[in-house]
């Protein structure tokens, strides 16, 4: 690139999250400040009214997601952002969004936990929570960006998936990505592929699905449809039911709509996986350290591939299973005590070849640490 004066901008990851969301049409944000996600609220408060959108600071995280869901029901693309403690508080209503099938994007800029933990330190400790944090079986889509640019691009995808599948999407950032600044290209709205919800009900019913379809269409409140939304199991009209067959069908459909279309949801990145002994599985901010280690491949003589599950839930199981067949060692690098590790262990047939590098001490994992661990893995393998 020549100079960066037009559509290129230096932005913080958190800021890029807002700009991407605005580009794809987010016009409502409700939130409650918490480090390290606060800049998302702050920038939203500045930018939204400039575009005729609305920002509201609610009294806590529970009401924030609730307000965002309310706005979504009224037809406005909505977002809320938080970090660990707030993410825990939002869990109940994430389940509500899942069963009521209300599109919404929930950003979690992970910090070190549990509890208040190390509020300003990097971590990827909420990965399993993103899938299992709310009670009961429910579908989950979660996406984890690795850079400021991918934050911009992926938040757009997050909104598109949320609208298409009528489901909450978790945007799982981490402190590293959220707080760093990089130059990025702001792709303008006109050039984006934007998915808006289909407001025309199937068979005149808000929760009916067509044949071989899994996703009901969703009219906005105030557009003439006068229907009911509930967090109870419900029939096609949206009215609560205790009918076992209906409950079964609905529960299963909620899972299926993600399962069936998983190829449209899953996205991953592979680097040098064709010819390597060791495969590193990593995601989010940790990816950067792995790339840093890769930079020094010549110097260190270490050959390894990288598998980055950008869509972290549903996890790209098939691809990893395929890769794992021809690879001796897998090294999972994540900023926690082993979360995606468990999924990798499940997918990869012979667990003995799965290694792990993780930590939580307030510092980031460095390329040096990765190189050291790779050397260890290699020497054990001999």
């Amino acid at each position, binding site marked *: *690139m*020549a*100079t*960066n*004066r037009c559509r*290129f901008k*230096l932005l913080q990851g958190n800021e890029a999250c807002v700009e991407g969301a605005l580009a794809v049409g987010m016009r409502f944000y409700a939130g409650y400040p918490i*480090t*390290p996600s606060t800049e998302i609220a702050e920038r939203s408060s500045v930018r939204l009214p400039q575009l005729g959108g609305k920002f509201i600071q609610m009294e806590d995280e529970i009401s924030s997601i609730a307000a965002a869901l309310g706005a979504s029901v009224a037809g406005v693309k909505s977002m809320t952002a938080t970090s660990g403690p707030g993410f825990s508080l939002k869990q109940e209503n994430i389940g509500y969004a899942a069963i009521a099938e209300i599109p919404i994007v929930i950003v979690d800029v992970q910090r070190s936990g549990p509890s208040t933990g190390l*509020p*300003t330190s990097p971590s990827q400790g909420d990965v399993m929570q993103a899938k299992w944090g709310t009670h009961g079986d429910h579908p989950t889509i979660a996406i984890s960006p690795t850079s400021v640019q991918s934050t911009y691009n992926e938040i757009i995808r997050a909104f598109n998936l949320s609208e298409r599948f009528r489901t909450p999407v978790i945007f799982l950032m981490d402190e*590293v990505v959220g*707080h*760093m*600044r*990089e*130059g990025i290209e702001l792709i303008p709205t006109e050039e984006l592929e934007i998915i808006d919800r289909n407001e025309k009900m199937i068979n005149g019913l808000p929760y009916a699905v067509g044949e071989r379809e899994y996703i009901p269409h969703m009219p906005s409140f105030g557009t003439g449809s006068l229907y009911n939304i509930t967090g109870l199991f419900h029939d096609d009209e949206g009215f609560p039911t205790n009918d076992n067959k209906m409950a079964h069908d609905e529960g299963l459909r909620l899972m299926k709509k993600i399962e069936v279309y998983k190829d449209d949801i899953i996205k991953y990145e592979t680097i040098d996986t064709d010819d390597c002994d060791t495969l590193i599985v990593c995601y989010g*901010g940790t990816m*950067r*350290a792995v*790339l*840093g*280690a*890769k*930079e020094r491949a010549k110097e260190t003589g270490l050959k390894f591939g990288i598998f980055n599950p950008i869509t972290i839930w549903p996890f790209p199981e098939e691809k990893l299973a395929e890769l794992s067949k021809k690879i001796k060692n897998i090294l999972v690098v994540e900023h926690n005590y082993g979360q995606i590790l468990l999924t990798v262990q499940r997918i990869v047939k012979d667990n003995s070849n799965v290694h792990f590098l993780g930590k939580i001490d307030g510092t*980031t994992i*460095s*390329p*040096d640490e990765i190189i050291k661990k790779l050397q260890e893995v290699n020497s054990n393998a001999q």
Partner: protein
Amino acid sequence: MCKSELRFTGSGGQGVILGTIIMAEAAFLDGKSVVQSQSYGPEARGGLCKAEVLVDDKAVNYTKVTKPTCLMSLTQQSFDKYKDTLADNAVLVVDDSINVPKNIGEAHKVYKLPILSSARKVIKNPMSANIISVGAVNAALDLASKESLEDAVVAHIPKGTEKLNVSAMNLGAQMIKEYVH
């Protein structure tokens, strides 16, 4: 390792973070790849503050500075904390109130500049120390074009303070030019 790895340190409230943002923005405007980051923490309130910029022609991967090619310090405390992890032949831009040990002075290129006092006395605004240091660091490293740096400065300071800050920036650059080792 990146071409340039800058670390700015000082105490909370001195605008050290903003300094690195401006540096990053300037290099970015020149078409470089940059990553800027900082330490947060309640401690950052009154205490130590650290911010970093990585600059390269190709993509910057790892996001943290490990061995700075340039260290900018405004306080003794912050200097002492970071003085020992430097790249070979690093450039040090420090306030002249800071006591730089001999071994460090010999191993690296050190600019001891009257940043804080000039901010107070010459620019007549203690808050301009960070802009002076930005000007100085940029000149010492020849990192970004003068135009880009000026644009970056102007983009990040309150409206109405452009003149003051641009002259602070120039003052910093001048200090380097005129520096006698």
